[in-house]
């Protein structure tokens, strides 16, 4: 349905404003990150790139602790991906393929997690984590991040497996595959792109989480926890450098999963 040209112009103007609204702050924090110490205090500022240099960024990365924090963020996010897929995908498969007693109770448990501010649960966990030796480890952080990502992974993989016809599996059984072989050879390859999207979401959830990571770490901080800790005393250009490093992977991740975004949330928000 073609719009009249006046309304079309209005529509594109509106969209241009919205696109600028999203992109401008990212552009400005990038300028801050690459503008160096002088750029940060320059007055008045130009919205064009001036005094660009990698100095501020490389100085920031060279600060003691930053590299380690980056590494910890990657480890915690990687473990979160592994745990939430390993625990969530079997559950999603069970929900998609079987009817069993307690199914609704399980769904309720998963949905219940949405009504709670989950990161807050990190508060009592500090005590148990200290006792178990999990405090101040990326592993411990990944456990609480998995609580955030797991319900999501279970719901999304459920819809994913529901979208793959049961007949494919049954055909494989007829040809002599065991259930497990049928799953590995027939279902898994078909589910792989969706699983990858789920994994990326789990990664982003962990990469971005601030509260739990800050509570559960002292020395082995993730990047978000580290930035939060130094926020008050660090100079502005370091803050912008840190903010920029946090933003870049997110932008790429959203690009990678853009096809799945709506399917995934259509299901997860049911």
């Amino acid at each position, binding site marked *: 349905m073609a719009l009249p040209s006046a309304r079309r112009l209005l529509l594109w103007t509106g969209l241009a404003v919205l696109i600028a609204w999203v992109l401008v702050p990212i552009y400005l924090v990038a300028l801050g990150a690459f503008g160096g110490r002088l750029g940060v205090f320059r007055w008045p500022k130009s919205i064009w790139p001036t005094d660009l240099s990698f100095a501020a960024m490389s100085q920031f990365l060279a600060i003691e602790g930053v590299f380690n924090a980056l590494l910890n963020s990657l480890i915690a996010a990687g473990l979160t991906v592994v745990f939430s897929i*390993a625990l969530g995908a079997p559950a999603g498969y069970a929900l998609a393929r079987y009817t069993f007693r307690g199914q609704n109770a399980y769904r309720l448990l998963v949905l219940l*997690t949405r009504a*709670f501010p989950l990161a807050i649960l990190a508060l009592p966990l500090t005590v148990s984590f200290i006792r178990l030796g999990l405090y101040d480890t990326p592993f411990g952080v990944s456990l609480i991040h998995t609580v955030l990502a*797991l319900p999501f992974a279970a719901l999304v993989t459920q819809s994913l497996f529901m979208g793959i016809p049961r007949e494919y599996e049954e055909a494989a059984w007829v040809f002599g595959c065991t259930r497990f072989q049928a799953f590995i050879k027939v279902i898994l390859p078909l589910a792989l792109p969706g699983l990858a999207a789920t994994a990326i979401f789990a990664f982003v959830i962990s990469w971005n989480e601030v509260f739990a990571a800050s509570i559960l770490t002292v020395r082995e901080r993730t990047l978000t926890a580290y930035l939060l800790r130094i926020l008050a005393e660090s100079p502005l250009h370091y803050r912008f450098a840190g903010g920029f490093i946090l933003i870049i992977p997110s932008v790429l991740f959203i690009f990678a999963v853009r096809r799945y975004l*709506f399917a995934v949330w259509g299901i997860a*928000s049911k």
Partner: protein
Amino acid sequence: MPARTSWIPYALIAPSVLFLGALFLVPLVQTVWLSVSAGDGLSLENYRRMASDLNFSLAVKNTFLLTLVVVPLQVVLALAMATMVTKLDKGRDLVLWVLTIPLGISDLAAGLAWLALLQNTGYLNSALYALGIIQGPVGWLSQETPVALFFAIVLAELWRATAIVLVILIAGLQLIPKEFAEAAEIFGARPWTRFTRITLPLLKPSLQSALILRTVLAFEVFAVVYALGGRNFPVLAGEAYVWQNDNQNYGVAAAYAVLIMAISLAATAVYLRVLRTHPEQLP
């Protein structure tokens, strides 16, 4: 095959049940327990200390005010975005990608991005200076300018978290059959009538999910506030963090956590009741 229940589904869900039991249900009970125990017995001492804290009433007020301003604005903005995007025939994917970018950005990073814009020698002040509105750098994010700081936080939250509402609403819009609007159009319904009488009611389940998710997260707001204003703008989650990390008082931190959980649950219950859909109303 599905006729009799086998052990297989139980084996498949068992790991996640155990995990959620250990890391969701147990800490939930622990939080409540921590909050009501002091010394060696049950007591409301932690809650008393929480309530008598200097920042407490301010934190409650700020958190509620933020949620009440941010969440409705986000829904309206996301509805406007979704309506505009669905009218596109060219470049739809690209526009959607850009509009959903903030979905992947953390609250901390969002706060820092807006700090670049709003700090004393930042871009907003430079623009105002160029227009001759201000004479030199002005601080917007200090304790002396609580209103400006509040709006800065609202802007950053709108920027960051509208994308999730947009995604949920677009996913919901895709589920509404086109025939409904077409039929209404044939019967002469104006666009606004079609929107309020067809789209909005059918979008109710998605709106409910979006509202629950956003409200729960809004009561948890923390890092955006910290990045922009430090401790100049107390919020509930921030106070919980301070009591736990700086004051090392787990009991009071737990009391804050229980308060946040209670508010979140109450809000969820309200949304479930007010926005309930009867199955026969669904397409």
